[in-house]
């Protein structure tokens, strides 16, 4: 294993300027990417970057053009080798520094696989998340949203929009779709969260994964014995999948369905409240909601640490020599603010054209649940605006606690009143 600085440097332009150590996380403004990241983006489309935990050299891609190119190119592998390298601090990883070779794949976790393994597993689920199926699901999503709006209206003011609305709406829906009992959520919610909690130790994450496999394993056995009308029962009955694969796939859906839309609903609400004209526009013209959701996805880009890939063989890309095992981080938050692609990208405009934003990724890994997320957000924001047209923050915006050190950016709490 070579020390980071002993790696021969590549062409001169890559080393001409200071090499950043990881992606800056500190923000001056809750809705804008850190100024230091935007400065990197303005400097060049692609550059060297050092990775945590021990400073190895890899790459950072910041422009919309190159982000799309990298994500569409399967030479940039989703199968991450070791020693693990990440663009933000993750204390648990030091324990893996001496581990050589590739990590064993977690069964069913197709987000970390390349074709054809990825294709085989993803296609078992793609029929569940089509545009058509999500339209059929609309009344169920609306029912969960109404249920939470009723609870909010009946509860005390101020309320925490994160705990009382943003988290439960998508959690109830993904549980219903999968066939995971929502009333057993104490058995999976903490573990689901631990997987994305970067201050958790590596051991803590492993324990969380094992707990989830045990929980899902029990459920799969029960569904096989007594099938119900849900995704887990269908997967359990599939002769081409073994139990561990089914559990891994279910865990992926469960954790992805919990954290992402929840962060968007709370941060999105805050963004609309802080841009009151946009809230009022959506209130006056509900037909703008579909485009408004795309704009919020683009403007807020909760996948603020980017998407990570590893190159398996030496290759040339855009004039750069990328070496085997080097990591490449695609900075989606800067790509979504790229003036070469979007008009006035630093402005939230629900009437604008956010098409082509990369918040759901690009390439064959593009978010499987994106149509569900869109439907949930459209119904949830519309319901919130209709029921509480006078909704406002209950604390100054500067006092809303931000979550900057985790995989998904957002707010920890959102005190609101009406």
């Amino acid at each position, binding site marked *: 294993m070579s020390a980071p600085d002993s790696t021969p440097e590549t062409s001169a332009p890559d080393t001409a300027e200071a090499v950043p150590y990881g992606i800056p996380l500190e923000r001056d403004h809750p809705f804008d990417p850190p100024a230091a990241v935007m400065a990197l983006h303005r400097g060049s489309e692609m550059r060297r970057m050092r990775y945590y935990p021990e400073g190895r050299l890899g790459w950072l891609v910041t422009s919309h053009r190159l982000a799309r190119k990298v*994500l569409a190119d399967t030479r940039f592998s989703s199968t991450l080798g070791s020693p693990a390298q990440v663009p933000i601090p993750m204390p648990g990883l030091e324990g893996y520094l001496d581990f050589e070779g590739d990590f064993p794949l977690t069964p069913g976790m197709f987000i970390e696989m390349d074709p054809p393994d990825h294709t085989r597993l993803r296609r078992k689920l*793609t029929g*569940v*998340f*089509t545009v*058509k199926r999500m339209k059929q699901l609309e009344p169920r999503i609306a029912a969960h949203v109404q249920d939470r709006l009723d609870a909010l209206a009946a509860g005390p003011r101020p309320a925490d929009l994160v705990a009382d609305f943003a988290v439960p709406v998508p959690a109830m829906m993904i549980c219903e779709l999968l066939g995971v009992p929502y009333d057993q959520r104490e058995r999976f919610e903490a573990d689901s969260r631990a997987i994305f909690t970067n201050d958790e130790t590596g051991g803590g994450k492993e324990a969380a994964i094992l707990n989830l496999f045990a929980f899902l394993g029990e459920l799969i056995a029960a569904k096989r014995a007594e099938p119900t009308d849900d995704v887990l029962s269908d997967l359990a009955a599939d002769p081409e999948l073994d139990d561990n694969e089914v559990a891994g796939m279910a865990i992926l859906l469960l954790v992805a369905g919990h954290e992402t839309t929840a962060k968007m609903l709370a941060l999105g609400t805050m963004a609309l409240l802080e841009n009151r004209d946009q809230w009022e526009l959506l209130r006056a013209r509900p037909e703008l909601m579909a485009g408004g959701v795309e704009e919020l996805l683009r403007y807020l880009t909760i996948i603020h640490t980017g998407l990570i890939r590893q190159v398996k063989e030496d290759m040339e890309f855009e004039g750069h020599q990328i070496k085997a095992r080097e990591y490449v981080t695609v900075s989606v938050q800067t790509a979504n603010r790229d003036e070469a692609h979007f008009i006035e990208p630093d402005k939230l405009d629900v009437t604008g054209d956010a*098409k082509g934003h990369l918040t759901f990724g690009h390439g064959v890994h593009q978010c499987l649940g994106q149509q569900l997320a869109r439907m949930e957000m459209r119904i949830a924001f519309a319901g919130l605006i209709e029921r509480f047209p006078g909704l406002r923050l209950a604390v100054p915006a500067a006092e809303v606690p931000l979550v900057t050190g985790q995989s998904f950016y957002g707010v920890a709490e959102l005190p609101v009143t009406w």
Partner: protein
Amino acid sequence: MVRIIADTEACASSGMCALTAPEYFDQDDEDGRVVLLADEAEDRDDEVADAVRLCPAGALRLA
């Protein structure tokens, strides 16, 4: 008129085409892969052009 060509092997079932240009694209009920509802479009049909551009898997093209 332009011809719409879909590569169902490359399709990643994201649903971007069915979302963007629902009069031209649908998805298979079983695996969500693209189903063409029309195999031709007007040269300047923006929705179809957007659907082709937005396809994450590069599975659509116009000829």
